[in-house]
């Protein structure tokens, strides 16, 4: 490749990524040259500014036709734009939570790393959402994963944190290996790593052995990627890691990293397997033939997440299982493969982003003050800080899918998508609704603590400004999208053209 072709590329479409990369580099340099005594909080604000800049430049791209550079390894289509929007907003809020984080133990010295590792992880997630090639997909995935491993172990003198990082690395590597193994089969069959070329090649395979191999690849890729989503069968790491990692990292894993997981699973499954034959008589594409398999995983995830959450006393473990359950709901969207899968997924991920991050901001504040993560710490919160308690109640109601909140509208969309096909997914919908009722138990359990139980300590609560901002934004969004969801739907329909360019 000579310089001329290199320069001829439309590098402009990578502006958001370049900004994040630049800021991450700048942060690491600043951290290096800043005197030890100076607070690293300023780095967080610089990072925040960088994300906002990236967000603005991304908004500038919305409405343009899809483009791709570097031999179609990097593409900016509607799907990439829409989901990058979520990644950037989520990361900006996580960063605010991190700025408001006042570590109790041994984090002071590493605070700089904290911020630029977030940026690196975000960069990985963004690359994933834009990649049109298995290689870039995998590089993005690894960038995200490795940064996350370090982040989870950030509290170096905390036993739980060490344990969580260790478990995360081991589980993560196994999962990655499985994914990679699956990908290697597809590469072996097609001889290319480009998703579009693969898809074109796979339409014409007819050898039964090959189809069998492809099916095997499908299973392995889905199993391996379920690690990032924290869904069955690779969900076991979540509770330990969520509990041990610093709260901002937990928030990051539960929202941004999960969103990235859904991005990659959609990119791979719907690019590679959408056109491949399944070998059955009706000529069903492979993805439809294996729909029930995803549905099974979704059902299992919802049941496991919601049932085990019932027994949790640690609020972060509780939210780990809650986030497993939420991922199960999101898998229902993928399993039902309706006409408006992308819209539904986007809306629910957006709603989930706000309600979960809002809740984590409050969790961080409450648990930090007392140093314990038992849900008993929420006792009497209504007395101490009525605003905080009511905000938390609304986030919990939204997670539980009660009308008036964004979570309800999101669930409504999921049901519609699952029931519209001629053979509606009745079992899956029933499981989802039944487990939602089960989830009332633990979500309301926290509310019972906040509103019914007397407070252990009656001191007034002072919230850092950054956390107030996160809680305020999340609260406004949760209610706004619950009452007037059409703002989001109109935005989607007006700007992303039903995501049709995903398959082009």
């Amino acid at each position, binding site marked *: 490749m000579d310089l001329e072709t290199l320069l001829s590329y439309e590098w402009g479409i990578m502006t958001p990524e370049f900004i994040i990369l630049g800021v991450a580099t700048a942060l690491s340099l600043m951290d290096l040259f800043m005197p030890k005594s100076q607070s690293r909080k300023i780095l967080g604000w610089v990072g925040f500014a960088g994300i906002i800049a990236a967000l603005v430049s991304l908004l500038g791209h919305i409405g343009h036709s899809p483009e791709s550079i570097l031999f179609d390894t990097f593409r900016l289509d509607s799907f990439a734009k829409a989901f990058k929007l979520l990644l950037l907003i989520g990361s900006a809020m996580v960063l605010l939570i991190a700025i408001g984080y006042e570590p109790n133990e041994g984090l002071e010295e590493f605070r700089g790393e904290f911020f630029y590792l977030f940026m690196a992880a975000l960069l990985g997630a963004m690359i994933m959402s834009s990649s049109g090639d298995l290689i870039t997909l995998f590089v993005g995935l690894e960038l995200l994963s490795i940064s996350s491993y370090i982040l989870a172990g950030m509290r170096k003198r905390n036993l739980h944190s060490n344990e969580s990082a260790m478990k995360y690395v081991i589980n993560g590597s196994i999962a990655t290996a499985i994914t990679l193994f699956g990908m290697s089969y597809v590469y072996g069959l097609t001889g290319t790593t480009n998703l579009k070329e693969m898809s074109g090649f796979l339409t014409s395979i007819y050898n039964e052995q090959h189809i069998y191999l492809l099916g095997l690849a499908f299973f392995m890729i889905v199993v391996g990627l379920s690690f990032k989503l924290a869904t069955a069968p690779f969900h076991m790491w979540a509770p330990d890691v969520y509990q041990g990692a610093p709260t901002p990292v937990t928030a990051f894993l539960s929202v941004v990293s999960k969103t990235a997981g859904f991005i990659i699973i959609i990119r791979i499954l719907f690019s590679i397997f959408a056109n491949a034959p399944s070998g059955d008589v009706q000529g069903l594409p492979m993805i439809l033939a294996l729909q029930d398999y995803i549905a099974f995983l979704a059902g299992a995830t919802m049941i496991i997440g919601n049932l085990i959450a019932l027994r949790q006393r640690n609020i972060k473990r509780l939210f780990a299982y809650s986030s497993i359950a939420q991922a199960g709901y999101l898998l229902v969207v993928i399993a039902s493969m309706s*006409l*408006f899968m992308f*819209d539904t997924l986007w809306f629910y991920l957006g709603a989930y982003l706000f309600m979960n991050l809002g809740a984590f901001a409050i969790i961080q504040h409450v648990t930090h003050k007392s140093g314990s993560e038992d849900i008993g710490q929420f006792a009497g919160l*209504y007395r101490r800080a009525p605003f905080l308690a009511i905000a938390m109640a609304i986030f919990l*109601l939204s997670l539980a899918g*009660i*009308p*008036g909140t964004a979570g*309800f*509208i999101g669930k*409504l*969309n999921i*049901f*519609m998508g699952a*029931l*519209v*096909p*001629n053979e*509606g997914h*009745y079992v899956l*919908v*029933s499981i989802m*609704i*039944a487990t*939602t*009722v089960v989830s*009332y*138990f633990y979500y*309301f359990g926290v509310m*019972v603590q906040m*509103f*019914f139980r007397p407070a252990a300590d009656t001191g007034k609560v002072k919230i850092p400004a950054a956390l107030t901002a996160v809680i305020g934004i999340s609260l406004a969004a949760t209610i706004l999208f619950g009452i007037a*969801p*059409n703002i989001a*739907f109109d935005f*989607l*329909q007006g700007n992303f053209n*039903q995501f*049709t360019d995903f398959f082009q």
Partner: protein
Amino acid sequence: MNLAYFLSILVFSPLLGILVLSFLPRTQESLIKTVGFLATLPALVLALIAYFQYRAGADLEQLNEKASWIQFGDAGQLGNLFSIDYELGLDGFSLIMIVLTAVLSTLAAIASIHIKKEWKGYFMLFLLLEVGMLGVFAAENLILFFIFFEITLIPTFFLIGKWGYYEKENAAYSFLIYNGLGSAVLLIVIMVLFARTGTANIDALMAAMNADNPQLVAPISENMKMGMLIALLIAFGVKLPIFPLHSWMVRVHVQAPPSIVMLHAGVLLKIGAFGLIRFGMGIFPEQFQSLAVWLAVLGVVNLLYGAFLAFVQTDFKMVLAYSSISHMGIVLIGLGALNEAGIQGAIFQVVSHGLIAALLFFLVGVLYERFQTSNIQNLGGLAKGMPITAGFLLAGAMASLGLPGMSGFVSEFMAFLGLFKEMPILAAVGTIGIIMTAVYLLRAVLGITYGKAHRDFAGITDMKKFEFVPVLVLVGLIVLIGVYPSVLSEPLTSTLETIMLGIGG
């Protein structure tokens, strides 16, 4: 009455009270109680205006409101597959339910004077509950109905769990789980209907489900219809409640504060009956006919089961709780009869029992305030110490057991008239329940009023001034319906005609 937003203002007017309350300091007890009470008045006034205008011949359709709300399911050139509108509207039946809700809310706000702590939170939730209840009856589409239905759930959970009696949290959880499951089943039905027909508007659904060649997004088979009706029966059966789904309701009646039980027994349980009539009969008339016998059987079971269990209770609240189950049996009997008399009887019973239950639970609150017990034996000899209260208690019991001249009589008479026409043997069995009702109510009430006195009534004041208001209003309405039933039957005429047309009766 040509007013845009009339219904929206009616439904959401209590929110104004919540807004005002949020600015009040939480220690101002009497101010908070006054504001809480005043906030229920706009809805009451508007509901009464609508009622009298309708009686005077105005058309309810002028009140319909419609605004586009959510569109999703973007299908490219096809446009949006699914849109949910914000639609409110009234017919005779829902108008009556709204009046009932507004009246009982105001009275329950008066009864809330007995609340002892955290008045601010209490009244905010109370008013939110009122919004939910009014909205349920005014909603013209299923999604909106469901949203209001769920909105009633959350405040009720907190009102029971925080301001109730000894085992309040268990009662609140049991309420939440039973009703949560009920609404989950309801949601499945609503979503299937919506996904397959593309509309959630109730009238449009009625038309679509009963047309010969309906325009549907996806087909609906006969079996599916039957399945959906049975699911509806379970969903609303939890609410009503139908035996054996009733255990939560007994707990709630015993543990919740009396002012909330007034609303719960008076309005919330009635949503079950309302839903069965409006959606069960309206959307699935054919399937409903084939289930009618079973409904009547369930009704008789409810009637007898409630009556026998009420007979053995020692706590007056338990008697009333089982009496509610028993009386809801009469609603089912009326619906099972599936003729005009039966359905009219069922609707009458819904209203009549709402008023009677509210009256009796208000009196329970009055007694509990003074004696901290609702045990029948402990309250014995009340007629000596509190003759006025005892007198009203007796009046409430008479209304409940169906004394002619009071509302209970009209409804029971009509429901049984309907059933005797269709299934005489079942109806004959059911009449045992009527006799049992008289037996258990008289046993309990006479035990309280004329039983052996176990306590000294010195220093106990009889009813205070403010306590007379709810009692007199309720007794007045009960007698009014008893002697002049057309206050109810006339507004219902058109609704009944529509229903009868649907089931081809």
